């Protein structure tokens, strides 16, 4: 049992963080995407996209745990969510892809040539994959997804859709006939949330991840996305903590650094506690996801909900403690606030995930009870 990252894992996370800081537009006050491509290319050059690709497919063969701190750095650096979604897609191909899919996809994924956006959310639908309306019928996909981060820059979409009454994952080219991508105008334009309409888009049999025989890929997607998004949001929370503590040390009012006032000091302390609790929860989800443990769903939902709550509190506190500067455009704290909000509502909001944690815990207790009875 060791709940600490090793030197390589830490160093990788730091490298990703440093790399992103070379692209100031990512966190600049203005909501620009002008350095997104450059940052992507630099991350690709670093090899980020090859990390999760298995060695037998010429990748580095690392696990989710190995990239947890890198994901956190992607969050803190406000990298495009397309980076995260491509990593999630890579992990899914590794777990569920047919040999043909692996052969076709790992090459361009590893080099960063292939950008994958994930199409999950639908208007008027909750998070339960069973209730989504997009469906493949007669080999054609129809329906509309919203809040697809980075769809306009993506090469391919990984779409959650019903197929033969089975929740499936389909790979769809963004340029395919019948696909319409429109960037939404929303709170965080830099996250590039898009509406994607599918109008009778042909889905070849080999476009279904793993052949579409079970709903395991969709369930894994939900847990992977929840886990990775918890990493992104706790990265934001920690960045807000650091920024705020730094400001509280230097900004003076009434002849003293404001960090000497208990009203500020104690709230920074509370933020630090929450960031630590959120990190522990997020990292544990990464481990359970990597191990595909029985607790994967519960720990992923726990991390998604809790880290989103913590990021929200941290952004709010950061703005408040910065005082008048906090709500200026120039201070750019709004960038983190906006991004945190967008991440919070993706792949299920905290209320949904907390309820899922409860449901999973109840199921777990029932399984334990059955096991005990069987043993007796």
């Amino acid at each position: 049992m060791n709940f600490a990252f090793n030197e390589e894992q830490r160093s990788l996370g730091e490298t990703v963080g440093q790399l992103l800081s070379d692209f100031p537009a990512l966190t600049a006050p203005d909501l620009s995407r002008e350095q997104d491509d450059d940052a992507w290319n630099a991350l690709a050059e670093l090899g980020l996209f090859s990390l999760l690709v298995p060695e037998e497919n010429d990748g580095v063969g690392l696990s989710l745990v190995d990239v947890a701190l890198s994901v956190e750095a992607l969050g803190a650096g406000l990298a495009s969510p397309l980076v995260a979604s491509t990593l999630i897609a890579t992990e899914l191909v590794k777990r569920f892809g047919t040999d043909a899919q692996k052969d076709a996809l790992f090459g361009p994924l590893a080099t960063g040539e292939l950008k994958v956006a994930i199409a999950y959310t639908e208007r008027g639908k909750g998070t339960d994959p069973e209730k989504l309306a997009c469906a493949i019928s007669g080999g054609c996909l129809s329906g509309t997804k919203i809040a697809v981060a980075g769809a306009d820059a993506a090469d391919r979409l990984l779409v959650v859709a019903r197929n033969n009454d089975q929740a499936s994952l389909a790979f769809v080219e963004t340029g395919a006939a019948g696909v319409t991508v429109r960037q939404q105008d929303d709170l965080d334009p830099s996250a590039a949330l898009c509406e994607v309409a599918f109008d009778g888009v042909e889905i070849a049999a080999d476009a279904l991840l793993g052949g579409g025989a079970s709903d395991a890929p969709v369930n894994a997607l939900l847990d992977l996305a929840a886990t990775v998004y918890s990493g992104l949001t706790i990265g934001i929370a920690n960045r807000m903590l650091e920024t705020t503590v730094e400001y509280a040390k230097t900004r003076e009012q009434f002849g003293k650094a404001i960090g000497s006032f208990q009203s500020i000091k104690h709230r920074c302390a509370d933020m630090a506690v929450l960031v630590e609790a959120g990190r522990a929860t997020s990292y544990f989800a990464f481990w359970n996801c990597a191990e595909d443990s029985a607790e994967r769903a519960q720990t992923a939902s726990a991390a998604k909900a809790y880290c989103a709550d913590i990021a929200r509190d941290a952004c709010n506190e950061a703005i408040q403690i910065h005082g008048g500067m906090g709500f200026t455009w120039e201070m750019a704290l709004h960038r983190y606030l906006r991004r945190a909000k967008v991440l919070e509502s993706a792949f299920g909001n905290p209320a949904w995930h907390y309820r899922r944690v409860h449901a999973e815990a109840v199921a777990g207790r029932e399984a334990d009870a059955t096991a005990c009875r069987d043993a007796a």
Partner: protein
Amino acid sequence: MDFNYTPEENAFRMDLRKWLADALPKGWGETVFEPEEEEARYLFRRDWDRKLASGGWTGINWPVEYGGRGATLVERAIFAEEMARARAPESLNIIGQNLAGPTILHFGTEAQKKRFLPKIISSEEIWAQGFSEPNAGSDLASVRTRAERKGDKFIVNGQKIWTSFAQYSQWCFALVRTDPDAPKHKGISFLLIDMNSPGVSIRPLRQISGESEFNETFFDDVEVPAENLVGDLNDGWRIAMTTLAYERGPEDCLARQIRFKRELDSLIDVAGAMPMDDGVVSDDPGVQEDLGRAIVEIDAMRLVALRSFSRFLNGEERGPDASIIKLYWSHAAQRMNEKAIDILGAPGLLTGEDPEAVARGSFGMSYLQSKAFTIYSGSSEIQRNIIGERLLGLPR
């Protein structure tokens, strides 16, 4: 205690209601709205202020001799209610009406009252507030902007920040240091400054919402006639305290409550109509609970302000209890604006530019704007100090 109204009060309400029905464009608040673009919106509001003035609906409870209506505080509260009911636009001249006017009424000379009050009432002159400075935010008394007396003029040099609506303002009231050697609270004076004076320049400060309600204002050898001093020289701190009690007082709260109540009503409607799985968003008991709590808090905002009104009616002085009002409305509104986004999910994040936007994207914009509520007009930390020390008597 009685929330029934007198026949006179009811007549006042009906007059106003009738006037508003005529004055607002047809379909107002349903199909017709304020301009989206920021400057156009502010100019729209200024025109609305002037229309209100032409109907005699500004300076409600100011003395008739200065152009006011001479109405009671209760009628002022009714005014707020009816403006809410009609979803009337906000005022652009809040600073003039709620801060400059009352301060001049309290401490101004007869000449100052005659000169300034009618033009606030008519909204010919918009006002800005010049209290904060880059290094004197919460620590307001550490103002460095200096005013030196030269003959019958003051020469003002320095910088103010968070001067709201300065770009639309003709006048600014400012705290200036007139005795650099006195203890910091004792060398401050309260000056009225013509924003068209040579040497005044402004730079807009963009907020996280993308708007520029606030500015930095620079004073470079600006000449201000000595008659524009309000109260005694070096007595500005005491006067500022009164201004702040008005800034945080029930009139301001009631005017804001109009907006929050409208937003909340809209949220209730949207959540009751927006499809979610097999029903609508507000079928979720958790959402119902959140909305219920928000309703309670937004209503309490009004009630707390009305309690304060009644204390004034009973002859009590304005005092630090204004901080209770400010602290309450700012946090309650912020919670409601955050809940709105949470309840609506991804569609609630769309801005007014998006064809699928919910309620013209107002929830996202209000959410961003709300982050400033607990900072401006004295941060929550300052309000808590005031309540703790001056109201509860806790030691410094």
